[in-house]
């Protein structure tokens, strides 16, 4: 019986089916916990799902590359999902027209704040150069951040992890911070979440309200553009790689 099981495991471990199924099952388990907690932001489903998967892969001695063979199908959907953000954004068109100017100014300031504060704090605490360059684009959505990191001498796969962590932090802490600072407008909250915490923050914002989600999506897209344009220029000016 045991050798047969080993054979099955060897077969399954080499096929994409296992990585894909594991991703979906872990996420649904994590989402169930999140719902059971009354959508408590600290029970972030991404963080829980990642923890479950990393634990299982480590226990079974499976490499990330083998896992990603299956998980890439989920990863791929980030592209069409990013395009789909145009739909909720369109629903906010009248409101968007009214606050277009202020939003662009806030975007420029927010985008610079995200880049400069990440590099400054990382540098002050002694991070190495490749780590700093991987930290710099941490507030923009994964595919953009990875592309930028590659250009400025960071490690794209490390950037992906830092981006996801940033998103989780933003999703967990945003509501609390806005209460503290008395920022009440849902459109403003959504916009700040989108600038600071990209897609994961946006996913959380959609769970709170449609308006907040749409403005988060807008800010996330705009900050992707702004950071992709600003960061390579800043790094060159700084005397980077």
């Amino acid at each position, binding site marked *: 019986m045991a050798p047969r099981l080993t054979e099955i495991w060897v077969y399954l471990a080499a096929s994409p089916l296992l990585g894909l199924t594991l991703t979906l099952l872990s996420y649904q388990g994590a989402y169930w916990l999140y719902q059971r907690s009354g959508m408590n932001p600290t029970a972030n489903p991404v963080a829980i799902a990642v923890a479950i998967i990393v634990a299982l892969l480590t226990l079974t001695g499976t490499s990330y590359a083998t896992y990603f063979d299956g998980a890439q199908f989920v990863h791929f959907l980030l592209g069409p999902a990013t395009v789909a953000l*145009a739909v909720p954004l369109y629903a906010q068109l009248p409101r968007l027209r009214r606050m277009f100017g202020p939003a662009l100014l806030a975007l420029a300031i927010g985008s610079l*704040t995200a880049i400069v504060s990440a590099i400054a*704090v990382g540098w002050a605490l002694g991070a190495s150069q490749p780590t700093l360059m991987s*930290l710099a684009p941490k507030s923009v959505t994964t595919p953009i951040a990875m592309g930028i990191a590659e250009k400025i001498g960071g490690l794209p796969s490390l950037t992906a*992890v830092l981006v996801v962590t940033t998103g989780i932090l933003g999703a967990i802490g945003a509501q609390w911070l806005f209460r503290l600072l008395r920022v009440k407008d849902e459109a403003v909250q959504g916009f*700040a979440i989108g600038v600071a915490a990209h897609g994961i923050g946006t*996913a959380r914002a959609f769970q709170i309200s449609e308006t907040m989600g749409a403005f988060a999506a807008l800010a996330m897209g705009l900050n992707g553009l702004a950071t992709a344009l600003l960061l390579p220029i800043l790094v060159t000016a700084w005397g980077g790689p």
Partner: protein
Amino acid sequence: MLGALTLLLLFQLAGEVIVQFFALPVPGPVIGMALLFAALVARDGVPDNLRSTANNLLQHLSLLFVPAGVGVMVHLARLGDEWPAIVGALVASTFVTLGVTGLVLCAFLKRGKSQP
């Protein structure tokens, strides 16, 4: 569902082509989003099947970040060495950015209202 998914992929593809053609520093899907947004404005409405497919896809947006997040296991050694700087930078920068962006936008909107 199928038609709407194809439409999303077509816009993504158009975005990728534009990015490659003009050597833009932005990923294709973001240009695809801008193109779809422009198309919806021009068309003056969202087709029903596109709306439902987009909602389905976005409802579980956070699922799509899980595979990238699992990449943490490749970087455990570096994270072990540099975790104080990384954690400090991520926490400080995320909250400072949230706060600054929120407060600045609030201030700009208020000023806009007081002088119409």
